[in-house]
């Protein structure tokens, strides 16, 4: 029985309709979306949470499906601010500071924005462990969903694939999201045939690949 429920795992679902393309220059549909982007990035830069925790908070919002993307960002941001005691509910409602501020690790200053964006947050780590798998190895993915944030999509659970690329050791999203540290693991690109994922009747020539941490995988029999 799992209690963690992600509403974001959409791969392979039916019934969402056709894609509506948009012209290249179309970035925002309202002024508040610009501000939603900026405050989310600026608060992320304080270092109070990491990207995996923020994804976890967003994907578990109960009204995920009814929110547009930037609505999701704002609701997720408010949830993170409350979780970390940076902002209280009454302050959100009042639109004003009602309680003393808490210290944050850093505040992103305008002059530092270009350097901060140019640096990013690399997840590659050095490791002394040896990679369990090599390119070409047959693998099978973990059978079930995890009871926490994870990056193995449901459609790719308990499927046979092959290692296509070895990407080095990376911060493990599952533990990182839960506040359990980086615990770097080898990361692989694993390719599946469409038939393995979707059965008969699919486009037999196509493949789908995911990026999978080592603990998502076992050697295929």
């Amino acid at each position, binding site marked *: 029985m799992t209690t963690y429920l992600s509403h*974001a795992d*959409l*791969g*392979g*679902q039916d019934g*969402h309709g056709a*894609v509506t*393309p*948009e012209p*290249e220059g*179309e*970035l925002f549909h*309202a002024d*508040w979306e610009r*501000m939603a*982007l900026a*405050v989310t990035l*600026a*608060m992320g830069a*304080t270092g109070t949470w990491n990207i995996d925790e923020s*994804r976890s908070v967003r*994907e578990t919002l109960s009204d995920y499906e009814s929110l547009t*993307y930037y*609505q999701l960002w*704002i609701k997720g941001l408010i949830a993170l601010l409350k979780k970390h005691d940076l*902002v209280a509910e009454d*302050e*959100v409602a*009042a*639109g*004003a500071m009602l309680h003393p501020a808490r210290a944050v690790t850093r*505040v*992103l*200053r*305008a002059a*530092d*924005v*270009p350097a901060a*964006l*140019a*640096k*990013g*947050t*690399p997840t*590659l780590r050095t490791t002394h462990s040896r990679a369990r798998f090599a390119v070409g190895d047959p693998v099978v993915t973990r059978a079930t969903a995890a009871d926490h944030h994870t*990056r193995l*999509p449901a*459609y790719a659970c308990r499927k046979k694939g092959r290692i296509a690329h070895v*990407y080095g050791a990376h911060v493990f999203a599952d533990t990182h999201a839960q506040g359990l540290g980086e615990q770097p693991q080898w*990361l692989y690109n694993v*390719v599946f045939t469409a038939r393995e994922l*979707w059965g008969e009747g*699919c*486009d037999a*020539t*196509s*493949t*789908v*690949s995911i*990026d999978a941490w080592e603990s998502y995988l076992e050697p295929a029999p």
Partner: protein
Amino acid sequence: MELQVRALRTVLEQKGYIDPAALDVLIDTYETKIGPRNGARVVAKAWTDDAYRKWLFTDATAAIASLGYHGRQGEMIVALENTASIHNLVVCTLCSCYPWPVLGLPPTWYKSAPFRSRAVKNPRGVLADFGVQLPESVSIRVWDSTAEVRYLVVPHRPKGSEHLSEERLSDLVTRDSMIGTGLVKAPAP
């Protein structure tokens, strides 16, 4: 939403967590500086410079950084080559992972349920939504960005573009062609 976001911004400013001037720089960066023209320059260079092309397909992160594009949401980039028999399509079924340094912010459809749900299961159907039809002889490789590796599709160089300069070539390269939902069209004669 307008009021709610403004109220939230006010609280964050009053508490000293954010520098209002930084917000303007962030917005300006993604509206005017970091966008798909960056990726288009990478593609055009790969089309015209064979040594660069080889570098791009062995170490895209470094090859792309050499043009000045690196950092947030592009800390590790892999370039995917479209050929006469292979077409690559990039998606993030779990959220909206996208190679920001080369393509900027993802378009709304990329973050939408229709694209995220169908790209892995029915890629030809998704391509049809974009008016793209590929022969059956072309196999489609879908890349679901489930970790922090970001993917850039290097589209097929169109016939009839042999005489064009790198700069003119980059003008032909569309955002969608670097996600895999579009093809680069031949230049007008």
